[in-house]
């Protein structure tokens, strides 16, 4: 049940992409353990504003763990210490009285800092733009039950499709690789019969786009899987590699 704790917060403050940035320290007293991590930051911000100071900028929206907009590094771990949890679903009851928390933005070459804890993750949209979809126009789709899909396949596709695109995998990876994100999308679509016709083209174009944007390669560190709030498996990276190799050998069209 509800109790209060005192915390020391060391938060990355950076005015804009060109500012050097620094860690600033705040003492926060009487934090109710019922609060979510983001609500704790709200409380800090209310106080800062009443003191005439600039609040800490951080991204968030749904606050129920599904939109993928929130995410900061807490004590070195993207989305904080709880497994399978987004930052917005992390609650203060998991922290101890007197604890010091270091809060930083997701760091990767492809994620520019916009302000404080807010980073630009549009590179992930760029990768989807390169082919992370099934090319179908609206209106001409066949009757939905004309292509049966085994429930096992649908379930595996759903396991991969559950990715929320938050970017924690990139932030946790020593190479800042986006391969868990890309692998999840590739798997989701390659597993389904509807996604097969353009699977090769998709694998090549998404992989190339990822390299071009400055994301690194997978080194089997498995940090991505460890921090993923949706617990997406690295078997998706294996499938991405298979799809990519298959496509590299068998696909002729000039991209």
């Amino acid at each position, binding site marked *: *049940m*509800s109790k209060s704790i005192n915390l020391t917060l060391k938060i990355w403050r950076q005015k*804009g992409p060109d500012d050097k940035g620094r860690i600033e320290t705040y003492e926060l007293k009487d934090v*109710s353990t*019922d*609060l*979510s991590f*983001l*609500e704790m930051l*709200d*409380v800090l911000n*209310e106080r800062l*504003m*009443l003191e005439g100071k*600039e*609040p800490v*900028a951080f991204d*968030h*929206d*749904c*606050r*129920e*763990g*599904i939109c*993928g907009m929130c995410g900061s590094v807490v004590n070195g771990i993207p989305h904080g210490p*709880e497994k399978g949890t987004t930052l917005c*679903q992390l609650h203060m*009851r998991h922290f101890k009285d007197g604890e010091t928390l270091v809060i930083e933005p997701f760091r990767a070459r492809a994620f520019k800092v*916009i302000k404080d804890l*807010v980073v*630009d993750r*549009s590179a992930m*949209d760029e990768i*989807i*733009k*390169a*082919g*992370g*979809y*099934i*090319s*179908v126009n*609206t*209106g001409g*789709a*066949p*009757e*939905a*039950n004309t*292509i*049966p*899909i*085994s*429930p096992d396949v649908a379930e595996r*596709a*759903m396991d991969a*499709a*559950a990715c929320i*695109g938050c970017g924690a995998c990139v932030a946790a990876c020593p190479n800042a690789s986006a391969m868990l994100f890309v692998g999840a999308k590739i798997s989701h679509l390659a597993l389904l019969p*509807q996604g097969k016709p353009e699977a090769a083209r998709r694998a090549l174009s998404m992989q190339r786009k990822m390299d071009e944007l400055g994301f690194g390669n997978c080194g089997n560190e498995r940090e991505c899987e460890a921090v993923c709030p949706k617990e997406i498996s690295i078997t998706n990276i294996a499938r991405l590699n298979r799809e990519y190799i298959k496509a590299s050998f068998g696909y002729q069209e000039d991209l």
Partner: protein
Amino acid sequence: MQLDSKVPAGPLEKKWDRHRFELKLINPANKRKFDIIVVGTGLAGASASATLAELGYNVKTFCIQDSPRRAHSIAAQGGINAAKNYPGDGDSIWRLFYDTIKGGDFRAREANVYRLAQISNHIIDQCVAQGVPFAREYGGLLANRSFGGAQVSRTFYARGQTGQQLLLGAYGALMRQVHAGKVQLFPRHEMLDLVLVDGNARGIVTRDLISGRVESHAAHAVVLATGGYGNIYFLSTNGNSGNVTATWRAYKKGAFFANPSFVQIHPTCIPVHGTYQSKLTLMSESLRNDGRVWVPKNPGDKRAPNDIPDSERDYYLERKYPSFGNLVPRDVASRNAKAVCDEGRGVGPTGYAVYLDFRDAIKRDGREVIRKKYGNLFQMYERITGEDPYETPMMIYPAVHYVMGGLWVDYNLMSTIPGLFVLGEANFSDHGANRLGASALMQGLADGYFIIPYTIGGYLAGTLLSDVKEDHPAFKEAEKAVAEKISRLLSIKGRRTVNDFHRELGRLLWNNCGMSRNDADMQEAKKKIPQLREEFWENVTVPGTPGEFNQVLEKAGRVADFLEFAELMVEDALQRRESCGCHFNEAYQTEDNEALRNDETCCYVSTWQFNGDGKEPTFHEEPLVFENVELIQRSYK
């Protein structure tokens, strides 16, 4: 003024076909001569942007999030309805139409709702083709489940993440068109004004949320798909960025607002626990299939739930509604929860909660069966509350979830401003006074994929539009007004935070114009809202400067609009002299406390026309005519 709904003549089943034939067409080669602005990238906005671009129009798409994939449609859990009748349990387009009309307490337009039911089947086909991983039966065909308010299984679902998967499908379609160069995407941009030239909607003014730049964008038509305004209550199940700004500013430019007081309260949310809480989390309605709702019989019974014997528990829904029991529709379940708490029989630290108990289901089916059905929801509950629902009953309480009110639109989804179209939750059209589960997703996608592509063409082909660019004086004027409002907000430098005002407004509305309303409370709110608004403009503190990334400034603008809109909402609630759907006015109830509708005098859509700041808006009604269904009292006894 007579509002023209433009509903086509002829039998209900043929109206949409006939209308599509009658709409003028634009030659495919000429579509590239038209620019269309779409604001919002949820199910309605993303699907509309993708489809319009596929047809050949040049589309400019705006969203306030960092990526179109973050729109709040992503959070919808339960499912999407369609009248496929795969289970063969008696469903049909007619039945889906009828359930939707009845569920909305006969306050929606027949022709629109029928069209929605017709289109529902195409949506499933389209989404399957896009790769949405819907649940499947062993034979590989699509699975269905049932949902509150319906007696057939017509809901398609992708685990508890249906909204996410449908949105990712639409987002993929959108990104494909961005890649093709037919959609220009503007993330982290907020629409701050609508621009009219010669009375037609011809563009918008936006603020780039990163640089703070105020910009103009011209087009031949504007589509608003900006969602609902449930966040006016401060606490709601909506994403934090949801707001009324785009629709409110369109209202101030002449678009009529319809049924602003129709707000859906969802019965199964995790209750409020503290002052700094920012969010209410919804627990899927499907829990009511197995969970039993109860409170202690005696007020003030503070014993732990498992210490209260059955004889001292009141399973009030089962007692009052024996045939529907715990599965009564949302409005009925919500009101009854409030009533028992108001009697002092609520549970938990605040007394504003009821138990949703799985004890009997676990005893009957075993823990494992329950875990398979609801495991992820139980886990989510435990994560938020720190309590284990396998051992102790969940606590739930109703929360603001969805709004049925929005900008008034005709059958073409066009507002009273020519060239301004409104889709999804942002319009008022399909859910009447109460939305049934799994029908919001259906409406968003029907509007975006299958209605707007036809009707916008009809408008563009039939309207002579002059050449308008961003240097037109109308844009300059709107930009200036927007910039002035921003600098005014920044110059106040008062002593109360934006959230503080928002919280006070939310509390006032929840208490005085929430789940259950009476004239005295609403009159009080009507008096207090202008005072709060006045204080806001004198005493709010907004740090920083206009030309930078400034989240408090963003929020301040939205709260300023909520403070204006709140008054219209209360006015609308006062105007409606009946109880219907989610609008429950205590003066209008049956002997057993059910909503008492008045079809004689209130069978209309209430709409409001802006007359200038500080002036009373003008009320207009669109009478609702039911030619195909008989208006009956909803009863779930």
